[in-house]
């Protein structure tokens, strides 16, 4: 843009909007306020950018995350100073934990007032310093263009993440002086390593080729690396025959219908995935980070395996689990290198290993009781997710979730065949993520069916976003598994605190049907299993947004489960007694 003569005379706000257009931004998720009025005035009547007015800045950040995760493009947020910025922090921290590319523009009080406790002043750069990949305070409009360009580059390359650009109001209004106009920041300073050294690739391939009990453990990095990474993962798996599991964030990279798919691993992962990790002789971790939810007790984690870890972030390697071969690089690039290096090799005969896995599969760890003991007429929540999957999977829906049991049931019982279809708050575990994320995904993917599988407690955390979906006529669907409890909290209280249900009952719930209707949504309630399919069909048949309040068994628990601090071999399955208490060491674990 800078080569047009007019550019030199543009205000900071005009430079900003032009930069966003140049970056290919379609949507800006935001909320106005005093410190961003100059930017909002630029947006007025600008056809090139579509501003989506949320109802709370947390909604803006999560909507940007949903847009980013479903499209692979960076999400853009615009909020005012002080409370606008602090309200967005949860979403920024969420994007940081889950490596979601996002650029957040925050207004700031004018430069001269910074540090004076001015009205709506908050130290946004200070507050977001440790939950952003990088952040800036722009003090000169001449720096804006280069800063915005670098912000997008940092947010989207390497390990993606959120970048905050804090812009004081006077910098939005001022016109850069010609003297400074060409100023550009150094671009040398950030260059992620994409390809792996050839000898590491060969070593990894040789380890896999020699393996008798290999397993691939894949994560969100494969999705972040783009559709090519997914394609190459499937190709390498096909060549090597390695059984494959994935983290919560990685679901969809490997098709759930594939015979070598083990299901998700970790705390609520499948028996076969966790035992395969436990007994493997070679484990290849691709774009995952050995999260505590995945590993369980560290000294008992995959004790027999040689470990290869491919990650674009070198600080993920050897962070919690020491590996035999750490490879820094982009998943797609390294997978491509491995496929080339594998060439026409033949894997070992994996027959015996697959037979063992078949034995574990036969345990049918996801089988659940037909009926709840305390609530025999109620719909089992697992059943509801299974029916939702059965009735929608042909349309390859995008599923978002809130946080809790329903999230884990969605991960366990809703199969994903493709990447970018599963949007959930994994690292931070943010209740209230699902509805705004669904809104962002629906904007980015207007022809897709987008469903938020929600809990009745979580959905209330960003319930105000019902209005955003109405305003932009977004046909998102919310499917509440209403168990009248913060079910996941209740489950832990059963496990750890002798069923003392301290504050985990969802009291004084709204009538979700009427609530939906008051926002112009369709509201549907399902109470009987016999109504389940018809209710789901009715949800799919409505063209606008729909909220389904699906009443489910109040006492169902999410199993299998590895209690925190336990080993993969110490899974609780349906039928095991699991009520009681724990010692302090176990209680201290999250």
């Amino acid at each position, binding site marked *: 843009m800078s080569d047009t003569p007019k550019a030199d005379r543009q205000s900071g706000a005009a430079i900003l909007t032009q930069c966003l257009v140049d970056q290919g931004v379609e949507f800006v998720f935001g909320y106005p306020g005093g410190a961003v009025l100059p930017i909002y005035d630029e947006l007025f009547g600008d056809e090139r950018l579509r501003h989506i007015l949320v109802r709370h800045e947390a909604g803006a950040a999560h909507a940007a995350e949903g847009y980013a995760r479903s499209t692979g493009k960076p999400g853009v947020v615009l909020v005012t100073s002080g409370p606008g910025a602090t309200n967005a922090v949860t979403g920024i921290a969420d994007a940081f934990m889950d490596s979601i590319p996002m650029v957040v523009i925050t207004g700031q009080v004018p430069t001269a007032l910074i540090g004076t406790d001015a009205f709506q002043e908050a130290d946004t750069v200070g507050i977001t310093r440790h939950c952003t*990949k990088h952040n800036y305070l722009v003090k000169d409009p001449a720096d804006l263009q280069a800063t915005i360009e670098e912000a997008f580059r940092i947010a989207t390359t390497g390990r993606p993440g959120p970048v905050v650009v804090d812009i004081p109001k006077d910098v939005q209004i001022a016109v850069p002086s010609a003297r400074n106009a060409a100023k550009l920041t*150094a671009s040398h300073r950030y260059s992620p390593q994409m390809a792996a050294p050839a000898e590491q690739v060969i070593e990894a391939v040789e380890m896999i080729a020699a393996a008798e009990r290999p397993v691939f453990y894949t994560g969100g990095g494969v999705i972040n690396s783009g559709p090519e990474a997914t394609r190459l993962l499937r190709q390498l798996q096909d060549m090597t025959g390695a059984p494959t599991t994935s983290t919560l964030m990685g679901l969809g990279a490997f098709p759930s219908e594939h015979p070598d798919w083990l299901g998700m691993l970790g705390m609520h992962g499948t028996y076969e995935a966790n035992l395969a990790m436990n007994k493997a002789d070679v484990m290849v971790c691709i774009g995952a980070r050995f999260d505590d939810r995945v590993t369980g007790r560290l000294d008992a984690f995959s004790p027999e395996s040689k470990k290869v870890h491919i990650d674009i972030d*070198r600080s993920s390697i050897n962070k919690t689990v*020491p590996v035999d071969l750490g490879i820094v690089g982009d998943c797609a690039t390294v997978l491509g290198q491995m496929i080339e290096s594998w060439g026409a090799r033949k894997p070992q005969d994996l027959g015996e290993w697959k037979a063992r896995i078949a034995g574990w599969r036969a345990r049918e760890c996801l089988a659940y009781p037909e009926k709840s003991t305390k609530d025999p007429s109620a719909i089992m929540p697992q059943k509801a997710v299974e029916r939702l999957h059965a009735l929608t999977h042909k349309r390859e829906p995008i599923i978002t979730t809130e946080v809790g049991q329903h999230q884990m049931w969605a991960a366990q019982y809703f199969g994903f065949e493709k990447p970018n279809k599963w949007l959930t708050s994994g690292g931070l575990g943010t209740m209230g993520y699902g509805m705004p994320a669904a809104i962002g995904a629906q904007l980015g993917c207007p022809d897709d069916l987008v469903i938020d599988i929600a809990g009745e407690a979580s959905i209330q955390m960003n319930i105000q976003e019902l209005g955003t979906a109405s305003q932009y006529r977004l046909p998102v669907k919310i499917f509440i598994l209403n168990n009248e409890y913060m079910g996941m909290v209740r489950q832990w209280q059963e496990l750890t605190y002798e069923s003392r249900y301290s504050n985990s009952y969802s009291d004084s719930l709204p009538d979700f049907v009427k609530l939906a209707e008051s926002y112009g949504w369709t509201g549907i309630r399902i109470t009987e299993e016999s109504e389940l399919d018809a209710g789901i069909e009715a949800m799919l048949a409505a063209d606008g947004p729909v909220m389904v309040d699906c009443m489910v068994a109040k006492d169902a628990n999410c199993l299998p489960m590895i209690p925190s601090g336990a080993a993969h071999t110490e899974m609780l399955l349906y039928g095991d007694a699991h009520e009681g208490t724990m010692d302090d*060491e176990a209680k*201290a674990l999250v």
Partner: protein
Amino acid sequence: MKIAHDNAERHVLTVTVDNEPGILAKITGLFTARGYNIDSLTVADISADHAISRITIVTGGPPQVIDQIEAQLDRLVPVHGVVDLTTAGPHVERELALIKVTGTGEARVEALRVADIFRASVVDTTTESFVFELTGAPDKIDSFIALMRELGLVEVGRSGIVGMLRGAEGS
């Protein structure tokens, strides 16, 4: 229940960074947020255009924690490079201290004599006080301060460590 403590190993790291606002907060905040120790930290800009700063951090931790510290520092956008002098090879560490001692008579004479042995220089003097300047390896400064304690020590200021690899190569 027990709170775990790890065995620490001392390491000296040098970090070259873009000299931009907030960089020091970013680095020290990383240490506090992740529970790493800082025993000493020095920073100053080192390039003619004031664009680059060099930070020397003395930290401690088991080897895998030191490796994490390096990796975590390295992924910060304004960080150009991290060198662990302790593992990179023979290196020098220097620190500057200003030490104020008061006294008269024999103690004052003795203080001056010890300062001479340590090659500390007198940078300020009154009839009953000295300010000594001493540069050296940290343990040399420690011993000097220990001796001065008996000879009227009133105040100590230390710069923290600056380190560099020996030999012709830049790091």
